[in-house]
């Protein structure tokens, strides 16, 4: 769970950097990057790992959640009021909404490239620009990225804890990085969405 998650954490900044190219008025850099990502053999291998990571993360996450629910068949009348890592309580729900977005996202882009859905795989720049001009799409997009942020907020440091990587000095550093990451990454994606939607 943690390993797959950490791998996904590495992927997000790469995706963000490529997406930032959408902000340029010239479609070529983005399309070249997208083409490179789609065809370069090494990336192909990473892509397989990535898909595997996503599937493992989702399936294992759902499995664990079901196990966790089963471990308390009778609940409490008064909801738990312990002081806790707040967002960790909702990982399955924030995760599920990210998954919903992912499905939409695959239909819009990935499946086109795989030839499963009709569309121009060589000009994702235009596809993206078209999508960001639809207000509803932006609403969904922004909501999902906010939820992703909540997901990441707990995920980042939690992954280190699960892997047993705990340290007197480094753990607080990781916690700060988690803050920066959980705010920075979704903010970056949201920035693109808002720029393309409202300021173009």
């Amino acid at each position, binding site marked *: 769970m943690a390993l797959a998650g950490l791998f996904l954490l590495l992927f997000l900044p790469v995706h963000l950097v490529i997406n930032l190219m959408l902000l340029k008025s010239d479609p070529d850099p983005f399309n070249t990057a997208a083409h490179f990502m789609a065809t370069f053999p090494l990336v192909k291998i990473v892509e397989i790992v990535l898909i595997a990571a996503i599937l493992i993360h989702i399936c294992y996450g759902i499995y664990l959640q079901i196990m*966790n629910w089963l471990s308390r068949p009778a609940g409490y009348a008064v909801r738990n009021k312990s002081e*806790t890592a707040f967002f960790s309580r909702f990982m399955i729900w924030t995760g599920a909404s990210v998954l919903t977005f992912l499905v939409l996202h695959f239909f819009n882009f990935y499946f086109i490239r795989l030839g499963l859905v009709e569309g121009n795989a060589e000009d994702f720049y235009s596809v993206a620009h078209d999508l960001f001009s639809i207000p509803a799409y932006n609403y969904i997009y922004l909501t999902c990225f906010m939820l992703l942020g909540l997901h990441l907020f707990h995920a980042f*440091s939690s992954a280190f804890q699960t892997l047993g*990587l705990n340290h007197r000095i480094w753990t607080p550093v990781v916690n700060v990085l988690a803050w920066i990451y959980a705010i920075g990454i979704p903010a970056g994606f949201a920035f693109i969405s808002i720029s393309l939607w409202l300021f173009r």
Partner: protein
Amino acid sequence: MKLTLKIWRQKNARARGTFVTYRMDDVSPEMSFLEMLDSLNKKLVEENLEPVAFDHDCREGICGSCGMYINGHPHGPVPAITTCHLSMRHLRDGETIWVEPWRAKPFPVIKDLIVDRSAFDKIQSAGGFISVNSGGAPEANSIPVKRKNADDAFDSAICIGCGACVAACKNASAMLFVSAKISQFALLPQGRTEAKERVRAMVEKMDELGFGNCSNTGACEAECPKQIKLTNIARLNREYYKAY
């Protein structure tokens, strides 16, 4: 003080339970929570009604017997104490207090607020020991232990096995409990010899008994009456990976 109590009453493991309301008009703020229940029970017995059953023994916060889920908190709203140390001073006059048993699949209710925590003993007997026979021990000072390690081992070893961590955890996970024992032995040279077998056996038993998984939420740490730290869980994870 005047209080309204809503207490979970359940005749036995098979029976269906329900909350029963009791009104208390003469609670002294100097009573402990358990003494308040004692006085309720005294009244019930005098009316020939079955008193509320709850586990308790030393009443000084060390045996780990007592444990009730009070208004959404294992051991009540005050951090770092057991139910027996909860004083009525800590609660408000006129308050409605919900008292529930620990809830977890491996902790089935036996009666009222008493649950079966033998799962904890099973985990301990799976590997929570150092294999040394009486008489076979080396001279105590022949193995020096770093003072820091001895202190850290102590901080982990003070777990009282009350089950509050499981009760608090949204997943009913026993990771804090198991990790406290694993940590105590992992930090001492005496415990290193069997470290791999121990962590494998204890984790396997924990999973087999139906405890949930750790999602690093930290409710266990927040509610632990002995303030056992989450860092123990990280250490358990580390020890577990090392064992494979």
